[in-house]
């Protein structure tokens, strides 16, 4: 049988994680990511893995913390309110420099919000979320195929840089079905000499910890961690450019908003407007370079988001406000239509064309 299968985004993440060598999943159900947990519940017992429905999100993330300390690939998943609950544990994992994968299939907020898609956890995902100075590597897929591929990439990057990574999707991406070619089983072999695996009386014991009572020690770990972040910002930013060669206006959008925006860009081109799109694939590190380069070429930017305008701040920072940046948004579980995005583009172009 052909290698392509028909999968929901949530299922694609689960199967890709298994193929990436993840054998430990801890979670707590919440719409619209529940299929991910349900898939793990069916598959993990058959392949010698662990699926554990914890008593709460807080418990689940601390189980992730524990397994991450042993150097094994481990993950949890939830949707917005549940990811808020996990923030303390995520900060501990970042503070202990451990690789792990956290999946957020976002829904509308704040509070209990709703069960429809949203991108309003952008700040939480990219600016820290929990307490203290830290970052997550944040990947934003925009198709079911990317849900699978970026799950593997997230595990690889987390291991490479010894830090937690987040897959930031939304309810639409989690629920929609598309054909997927699943990734080959991982052959990643990152040495983890720091892992707590038992000394067998043959080496000094390792210690996993985020507590540094001496201010000087704590400052040093922060400085060192941010040196690592600099390397990541330099080397790991991912993005897609669409029709940017001769573009006079640039749409910036990620995830589901980018799929909608692509249609709007094509429609704008049919009307003779020179519009292109930059789609950030990593939200942290944010693809600053292509946006800075575009700022010297285009007349303005349209940030398309399923939030009240969060990524727009990074667009302004990356472009140093050289050109106007306007927001085209829906919130609370609503998705902008291609027509709405096109109207924003036309409004910005105004009488200039």
């Amino acid at each position, binding site marked *: 049988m052909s290698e392509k299968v*028909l999968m929901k985004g949530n299922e694609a993440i689960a199967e890709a994680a298994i193929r990436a060598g993840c054998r430990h999943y801890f979670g707590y159900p919440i*719409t*619209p990511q529940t299929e991910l947990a349900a898939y793990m519940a069916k*598959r993990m017992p058959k392949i010698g893995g662990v699926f554990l429905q914890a008593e709460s999100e807080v418990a689940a993330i601390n189980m992730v913390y524990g397994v991450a300390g042993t150097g094994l690939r481990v993950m949890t998943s939830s949707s917005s309110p549940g990811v808020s609950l996990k923030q303390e544990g995520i900060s501990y994992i970042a503070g202990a420099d451990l690789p792990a994968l956290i999946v957020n299939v976002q829904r509308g907020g704040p509070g209990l919000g709703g069960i429809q898609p949203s991108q309003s956890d952008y700040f939480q995902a990219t600016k820290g979320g929990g307490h203290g100075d830290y970052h997550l590597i944040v990947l934003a897929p925009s198709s079911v195929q990317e849900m699978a591929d970026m799950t593997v990439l997230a595990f690889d990057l987390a291991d490479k840089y010894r830090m937690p990574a987040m897959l930031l999707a939304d309810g639409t991406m989690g629920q929609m079905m598309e054909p997927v070619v699943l990734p080959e089983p991982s052959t990643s072999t990152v040495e983890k000499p720091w892992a707590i695996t038992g000394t067998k009386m043959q080496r000094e014991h390792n210690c996993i910890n985020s507590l540094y009572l001496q201010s000087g020690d704590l400052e040093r770990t922060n400085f060192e961690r941010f040196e690592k972040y600099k390397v990541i910002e330099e080397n790991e930013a991912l993005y897609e450019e669409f029709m940017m060669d001769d573009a006079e206006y640039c749409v910036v959008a990620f995830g589901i908003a980018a799929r909608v925006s692509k249609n709007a860009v094509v429609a704008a081109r049919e009307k003779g407007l020179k519009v292109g799109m930059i789609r950030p694939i990593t939200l942290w590190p944010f693809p600053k370079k292509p946006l800075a380069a575009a700022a010297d070429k285009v007349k303005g930017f349209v940030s398309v988001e399923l939030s009240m305008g969060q990524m727009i701040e990074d667009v302004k920072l990356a472009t140093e406000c050289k050109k106007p940046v306007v927001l085209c948004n829906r919130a609370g579980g609503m998705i902008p239509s291609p027509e709405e995005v096109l109207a924003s583009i036309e409004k910005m172009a105004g009488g200039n064309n």
Partner: protein
Amino acid sequence: MKRLSLFAGHYGSGKTNIAINYALDLKKSVNEVYIADMDIVNPYFRTKDSEKELNEAGVKLISLKYANTNVDLPSLPQEIYGLVQRRDCHAVMDIGGDDRGAYALGRYAPYILEENNYDMFFVANFFRPLTRTAEEAYEVMREIENACGIPFTGIINNSNVGRETTAEDVESTFGIADDLSRLSSLPVVMTTVTEEVASGLECENKFILNLQNKIF
């Protein structure tokens, strides 16, 4: 043709779409047709999404009180008891995903089995990740039967990869469907395809899915 037509299968195998198309087709030859949405598992992609088309065709929809309200509160409407107790109408019943969804059907099983005028179809898409082989699909079949207490009577091959599906894709699953048929001793009663795919497909018992919900 039996009075009750039940559609069950693995989560995401295409039950709802087939049930709606089947009900619309049934209405052409039968006066009173009901369709009951019995999915207590997933708050999305519901029978109610096609309410307008069903109304226009005169198919009566029985749906959860909270369907499409975004209130994720599983419950079943009392009208379903009417469908299994009064024996003078035809009803299509769309059962939720997997064995977990089928538990809800169990409470109606005594009425359905006593009347014994039903078909329960196992909807299979062999391109779905957890039902790629006949053995895997057979396991899901048995789980559903154990959950609801009603034996299947036939298999529907709904193998597809969405809009990219070709006739060759569907043909490549015929062997698996036959294996499942042998394992379960049940016939493959239909192969469900879209109009575009149907034209290039040679097989018996083709059933065309005319109504397709397009979101994008």
